[in-house]
């Protein structure tokens, strides 16, 4: 729990290149200027007049800040959080001084006193903006932690775990050799399930894991489960987020095979077309099965992780065609850099 939190709850400066962050900065400083103007005036007309006066020097500073911070963003993110904040404050002070120097002739050049007031305004505004982003970061991170924990839990059905253990127990007396292999498969499977799965895995590893998982299911379900693999044109070295295929196959068994006494076929096809890797999974579809909540959660989880790694270049589509349920995943073909 603790270690997961620490990973996610890290304080960090906002991403100054993100459009949302830039917009928030602009709006915040404008609002602050308007507030200052309103405080200094006694009527609406004069408030508007005052606002124009106040924001005249503020606008160039804000626009410059946006440019400079965006440019310096990678550098700032390498710094420790506190040093980063101090650096941002310094950058702002330098910018406001430069703007003041350059525009000295436009503003009433009573100068020193005004520059100090500018510095004060800048410090307050910058501190408030940074504090706002700090709070926002805090507010969003529990959601991220939770999403990650949910992903952890969504990975394996307790139903599968206990039934598999039960199946292995049944083998120990009669077929100890098969029981050994089954336990080894289980150990491998759980090693992957419990690993830190934020980095990409390869297609070959993912397929191997899925095969081991299916061995265990085969043990329980016997001839009710038939698996057809089409991996002749599989790019084994292609990168894929771990646990994309296995949970989908687990769904296929749970919804397509287990609810029927008749044997069913799961069809898995992995191939490459130009720069895209295709993963097609088909299983028998049963209309009256009403266990779709779990399925949607797993699909949502996989979709999210595909988007995280490949953004819009990856897609996951599901379709139902004559008694078959099909999941079709397309990801861009990427190899591990060696």
């Amino acid at each position: 729990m603790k270690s997961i939190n620490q990973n996610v709850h890290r304080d960090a400066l906002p991403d100054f290149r993100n459009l949302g962050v830039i917009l928030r900065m602009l709006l915040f400083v404008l609002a602050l200027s308007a507030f200052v103007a309103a405080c200094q005036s006694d009527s609406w007309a004069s408030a508007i007049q005052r606002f124009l006066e106040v924001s005249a020097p503020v606008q160039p500073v804000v626009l410059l800040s946006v440019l400079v911070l965006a440019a310096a963003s990678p550098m700032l993110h390498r710094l420790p959080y506190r040093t980063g904040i101090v650096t941002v404050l310094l950058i702002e002070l330098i910018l406001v001084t430069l703007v003041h120097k350059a525009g000295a002739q436009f503003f009433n050049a009573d100068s020193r006193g005004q520059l100090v007031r500018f510095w004060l305004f800048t410090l307050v505004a910058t501190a408030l903006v940074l504090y706002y982003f700090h709070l926002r970061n805090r507010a969003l991170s529990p959601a991220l932690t939770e999403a990650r924990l949910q992903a952890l839990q969504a990975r394996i059905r307790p139903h599968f775990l206990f039934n598999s253990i039960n199946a292995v127990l049944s083998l120990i007396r009669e077929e100890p050799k098969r029981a050994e292999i089954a336990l080894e498969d289980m150990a491998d499977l759980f090693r992957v399930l419990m690993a830190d799965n934020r980095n990409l895995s390869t297609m070959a590893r993912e397929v191997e894991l899925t095969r081991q998982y299916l061995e265990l299911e085969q043990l329980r379900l016997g001839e009710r489960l038939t698996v057809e693999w089409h991996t002749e044109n599989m790019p084994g070295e292609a990168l894929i987020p771990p646990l994309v295929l296995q949970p989908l196959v687990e769904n296929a068994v749970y919804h397509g095979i287990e609810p029927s006494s008749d044997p069913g076929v799961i069809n898995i096809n992995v191939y490459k077309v130009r720069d895209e890797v295709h993963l097609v999974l088909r299983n028998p579809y049963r209309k009256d099965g009403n266990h779709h909540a779990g399925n949607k959660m797993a699909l949502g989880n996989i979709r999210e992780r595909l988007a995280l790694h490949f953004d819009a270049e990856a897609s996951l589509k599901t379709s139902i065609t004559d008694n078959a349920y099909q999941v079709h995943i397309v990801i861009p073909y990427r190899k591990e850099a060696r």
Partner: protein
Amino acid sequence: MSKRGQSLRIVIADDEAPARSRIRDLLEDCAATFALEVVGEAANGRALIDLLQRTPADVVLLDIRMPEMDGIEAAQHIQKLPDPPSLIFTTAYDAYALKAFELHAVDYLLKPIRLRRLHDALTRVRSITPLSLDVLQQLTPEARRHLSVQERGRLVLVPVEKILFMRAELKYVTIRTAEREHLLEESLTRLEQEFHEKFVRIHRSCLVARDHIESFERGGEEGGESGWVVKLRGLDERLPVSRRQQHVMKEFGRL
């Protein structure tokens, strides 16, 4: 039920062969201290009910999640057998059922089953009070997939998707399939609650299967108060729609 002193006749119901063989192994271990014999095995609820009608048993070790007919539905039909066996549910994991079992003090065993637990459960089995249908229906949020009717001393299972309509008669409910009629001893109100997804009430005393509705017709004297009748696929008889239930026709694009 067998007389005291005779060996306990046990049936194992589970869809997974290794799970059945595991229970068989454990029962063999129990047999050292306990007079028992396994009289049969079934891979789903339907097969179990067939088996129990041929082979009487004292106890069924009943898996919950099975294809075609799950353990909890099977239990509801088993209660209608002339001399129903005691039931001990088995499950690897089923959050909903476990909560309900605790609530209603129903006997269950968690898989993988421990020898000791199995032994204890079998020792207690003769004192288990039979489960009431009320309790059984609360064990699952799902509707049954079959209705069971007693006909000439046998329990007949009628798949719900084959039923065209259910009509309340004096003491019974008549359920009608394309082939024939059966008499069911249940209340229409309860049936409506359980099967509201598949059946719609068109009259105070009649539920029809949504999937089998072919059309609504203007039906002269047959039409009763509303003047409308329902035509069901595979059935010549037209069923009157009451004025109160006329609104259901909107769902199907009429009126």
